[in-house]
């Protein structure tokens, strides 16, 4: 009975995810599509929980749905405002061209993918689960996903933080940050909310960071929450009051990579491979790296949300009224 209910729930959730993906992309209104995308991300979060992947569920909800959604809304709003005078129509119908060619190609691809999935041998070999769990006591942490991220495959994570930094470099070279809104009164309730929830979010972020050593959580979840604090403050008070100087942005975003690299090179100088922790102290080093990475991930995601290099203080005078991003819904 419970098994049947679980199956029904899975089927319903899978259907909902497919429907949300389809309607998010096929609706005429881009804004509606973005909102449906955020809902899609939250439903994906449920699917991750069903697949025993609580770490991914947290990151999906915070990063893929939350931060990406905020970025998309912000970019859409910026584009809409800059185009408002140039032309009216924002969306177009699918080009009349040859959708049947696309559809038949995709059908073939879908058939191949489905066949591939069904042809996976049913006996469960466990993949890398067995070695991962065998080495877990030596990895210094109790959560196998954290062990994979920061011990077994620490190179990946190092480069990933590098990719985040590169994205900031790219975004800063392409665009300027949205002009800060001035004097749009957001109302006492939003200010009160920001005052209560910003410290609360930082606290929860620290909790996730600590939790990552033993259970679901870790630097990415914590960093996403830090970025959420930044996004909330920017939306409430405006970017002008965010950061006093650009050097803080710069150091904040490279801090994690610096610590990561310094430790890696330090280990090499001690005669080990890069990022090969010394026996017994791996847990402590992982926590150091994760703490530094949390700061940087949070900072980088916030800078990416701002969508461009923050404008110099001297330009503060040129202010354009900007609509609240969340108010567009």
């Amino acid at each position, binding site marked *: 009975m419970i098994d049947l209910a679980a199956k029904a729930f899975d089927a319903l959730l899978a259907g909902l995810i497919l429907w949300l993906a389809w309607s998010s*992309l096929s609706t005429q209104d881009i804004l509606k599509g973005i909102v449906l995308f955020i809902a899609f991300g939250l439903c994906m979060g449920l699917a991750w929980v069903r697949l025993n992947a609580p770490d991914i569920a947290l990151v999906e909800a915070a990063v893929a749905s939350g931060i990406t959604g905020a970025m*998309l809304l912000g970019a859409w709003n910026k584009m809409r405002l800059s185009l408002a005078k140039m032309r009216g129509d924002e969306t177009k119908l699918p080009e009349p061209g040859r959708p049947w060619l696309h559809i038949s190609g995709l059908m073939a691809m879908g058939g191949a993918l489905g066949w591939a999935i069904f042809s996976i041998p049913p006996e469960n070999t466990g993949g890398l689960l067995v070695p*991962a769990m065998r080495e877990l006591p030596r990895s210094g942490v109790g959560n196998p996903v954290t062990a994979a991220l920061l011990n077994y495959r620490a190179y990946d994570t190092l480069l990933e933080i590098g990719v985040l930094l590169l994205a900031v470099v790219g975004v800063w070279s392409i665009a300027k940050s949205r002009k800060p809104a001035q004097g749009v009164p957001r109302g006492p309730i939003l200010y009160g909310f920001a005052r209560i929830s910003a410290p609360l979010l930082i606290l929860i972020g620290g909790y996730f960071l600590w939790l990552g050593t033993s259970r679901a959580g870790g630097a990415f979840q914590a960093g996403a929450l830090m970025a959420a604090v930044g996004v909330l403050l920017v939306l409430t008070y405006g970017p002008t009051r965010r950061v006093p100087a650009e050097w803080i942005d710069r150091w904040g975003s490279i801090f994690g990579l610096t610590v990561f690299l310094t430790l890696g090179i330090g280990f090499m100088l001690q005669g080990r491979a890069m990022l090969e922790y010394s026996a017994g102290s791996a847990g402590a080093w992982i926590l150091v790296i994760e703490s530094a990475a949390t700061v940087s991930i949070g900072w*980088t995601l916030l800078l990416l949300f701002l969508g461009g290099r923050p404008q110099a203080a001297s330009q503060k005078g040129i202010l354009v009224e900007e609509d609240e991003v969340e108010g567009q819904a």
Partner: protein
Amino acid sequence: MSLDPETLYALTGCGIFLIGLYSFSIYPHLIRKILALNIAGAGVYLVLASMAYQGKETVADPVPHAMVLTGIVVAVAGTALALALAGRISSETGKVDLEEPQDIEKEDE
């Protein structure tokens, strides 16, 4: 045969991937293309994590999970860069798509 949850979610992942790819190829609006790529990416993650699933009672394979986490974060970085490019393109050209090359072809015909 009854569908295991991992097969169900892997097939869902394929479906999402195809929906994303299809929309990416037919809609000209840049933000919609970025949205479509994100959704296609989500499909890939779903397939990966389904392969990691080892049953309700067992811990799942952590290595694909770590890869999916990495993938999600890299996707955000890519999305931010793509959105910045899209914003720059629309503010330089006043357009929300990249349809120009096709127009030139038409003129040639």
